[in-house]
């Protein structure tokens, strides 16, 4: 089924006709330029669009360019007071999406003058603003974005970055280990701190507040912070390691968040956390705060699934990850591929690369459409969290490498012999797997054998394998690359 994508703009060049009151096609107004070559300072977006029946894909692409930049539905003479050609985004390529009838990829370029320096709020207001409600499109999705170095350099990026984080924590050459304190709701501060202490003393590097633990009736935030920091310091004394627990400072207002973050700092926490739902401006404010106070800033991507998961509409998480790296977070939940939450392994690897690369290369099987020069901006530590356990250690290390926080919540706290035993199981599994990989073992093939061998001298690991060894979450991902068949989840 070949759909002809009709190129060739019929731009009206006679200014008098062009600005005559009335309605023109978007492609006639200068939003479609098939010969356009993006400048080094342009931002380039790739949209997946599904035009309504009978809407020409090129006109739809031009409309996306128009509605995400200067266009309104009718001609306005006031355009002539501006250097309007600069302000118009330019759709320059449209292609049918492989194996997806009715869907098209549209490439659109934006001049650097369109976006305020250092403001994700401003960039998103254009790129994912009105255009996503535009009637001639049934659906639209921002698949990927290429941000020019000139604009990247207007952002400060992660306040700490994964390299400096490791230096502060004195932890090198292996993934970090974490766990989310469970149950996420209902524990008193005193009980909550108990879970934190047991997990950290047992061998985890981090414990974590969950996204919706703020300051509810069962546990006031100050109480939580005090008990958690008691646990962190006791565990540090018991192990000789730097330990941390992500104190969630998400609150109703930015002022409340500052107050909570200040208290966390006063108590000596190395890390605070916020949720994605606080919004871009609040994220950038908290990033500035973290930078001023030598604090690692953990980002929990609560809410992203409402707009990233469905392939035909919304924003790909790789775009959100790029924006968050610029906005400035140090940790970012980027999926597990093998756990309980959505994620095709290759697509998820694409998100990790966007967080950690110095220069990201186009990589279609991983869903990465553009090269991206990160211009030395710091790297974000990806976090794998959600339904993972020690029995998957070889898969996790193979998929994600060393620079990742592996979070085993249920997989630590649900251990039959207790939380410390759960932590030991995870730490031993991790260290054994890193050691084996470095020794030259093929951990993908030999992983289970390596775990079983390590478990012979570590009964907590044996118990973990007995309890969860067979658990996997094999569902078809909704968001896989259009350029390769969906990779099966290895087990």
């Amino acid at each position, binding site marked *: 089924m070949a759909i002809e994508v009709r190129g060739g703009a019929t731009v009206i060049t006679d200014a008098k006709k062009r600005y005559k009151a009335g309605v023109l096609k978007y492609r006639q107004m200068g939003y479609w330029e098939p010969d356009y070559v993006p400048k080094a300072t342009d931002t380039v977006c790739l949209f997946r669009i599904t035009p309504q029946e009978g809407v020409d894909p090129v006109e739809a692409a031009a409309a996306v360019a128009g509605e995400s930049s200067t266009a309104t539905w009718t001609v306005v003479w006031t355009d002539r007071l501006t250097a309007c050609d600069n302000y118009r985004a330019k759709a320059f390529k449209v292609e049918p999406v492989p194996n997806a009838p009715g869907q098209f990829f549209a490439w659109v370029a934006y001049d650097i003058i369109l976006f305020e320096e250092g403001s994700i709020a401003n960039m998103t207001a254009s790129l994912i603003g009105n255009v996503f409600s535009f009637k001639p499109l049934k659906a639209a999705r921002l698949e990927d974005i290429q941000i020019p170095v000139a604009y990247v350099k207007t952002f400060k990026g992660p306040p700490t970055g994964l*390299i400096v984080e*490791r*230096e502060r924590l*004195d932890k*090198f*050459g*292996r993934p970090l280990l974490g766990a989310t304190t469970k149950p996420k709701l209902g524990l008193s501060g005193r009980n909550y701190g108990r879970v934190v202490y047991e997990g950290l*003393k*047992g*061998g985890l590097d981090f414990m974590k507040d969950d996204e919706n633990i703020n300051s509810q009736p069962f546990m006031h935030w100050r109480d939580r912070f*005090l008990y958690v*920091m*008691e646990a962190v*310091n*006791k565990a*540090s*004394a*018991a*192990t*000789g*390691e*730097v330990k941390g627990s992500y104190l969630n400072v998400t609150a109703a207002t930015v002022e409340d968040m500052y107050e909570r973050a200040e208290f966390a700092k*006063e*108590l*000596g926490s190395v890390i605070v956390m916020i949720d994605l739902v606080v919004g871009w401006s609040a994220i950038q404010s908290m990033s500035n705060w973290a930078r001023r106070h030598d604090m690692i800033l953990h980002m929990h991507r609560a809410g992203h699934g409402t707009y990233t998961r469905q392939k035909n509409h919304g924003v790909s998480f790789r775009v959100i990850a790029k924006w968050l790296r610029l906005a400035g977070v140090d940790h970012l939940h980027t999926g597990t591929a093998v756990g309980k939450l959505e994620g095709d392994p290759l697509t998820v690897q694409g998100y990790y690369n966007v967080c950690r690369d*110095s220069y990201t290369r186009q990589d279609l099987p991983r869903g990465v459409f553009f090269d991206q020069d990160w211009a*030395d901006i710091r*790297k974000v530590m990806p976090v794998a969290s959600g339904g993972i356990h020690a029995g998957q250690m070889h898969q996790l290390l193979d998929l994600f490498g060393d620079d990742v926080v592996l979070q085993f919540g249920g997989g630590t706290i649900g251990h039959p012999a207790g939380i*410390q*035993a759960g*932590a*030991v199981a995870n*730490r*031993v599994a991790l*260290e*054994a797997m*890193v*050691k084996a990989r*470095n*020794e*030259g073992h093929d951990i993908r093939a030999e992983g289970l054998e390596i775990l079983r061998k*390590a478990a012979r*001298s570590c009964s*907590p690991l044996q118990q973990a394998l007995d309890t969860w060894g067979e658990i996997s979450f094999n569902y078809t991902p909704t968001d896989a690359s259009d350029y390769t068949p969906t990779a099966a989840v290895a087990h």
Partner: protein
Amino acid sequence: MMTNPVGKITQGQFSFLPELTDAEISLQIEYGLKRGYAWSIEYTDDPHPRNTYWEMFGMPMFDLKDAAGVLLELDSCRKSFPQHYIRLMAFDSTRGVESIAMSFIVNRPDKEPGFALLREENRGRTQRYSLRNYATERPEGERS
């Protein structure tokens, strides 16, 4: 004796595993060398988690490309400081990294007494915490 599950200080990449043999250490060194890292040896009797600067046992071995050579240096360090903590560290000078890429303990004292947690009560139920190393009560020059 420390009270954590492995009864010892758990810094470094492999503290939860049985102590590495020299053959196993050699494989780790080779892995680092293959990736272009430079190995160095550091020792201390004060493994406080915030004690960043352990003593350097010589310079980082930037030009040493042979695991056996690194092991010889380690052996020499162990002979000089048998009751100290000794760690091997690999440095990665790649732009954008320029930091430590591997770090693990390869020698420990026979006894690891660990740390006391000191508390100072402050206002509003807050406390100021600090760790005291039981092993470093005496001045540095008078410890074995």
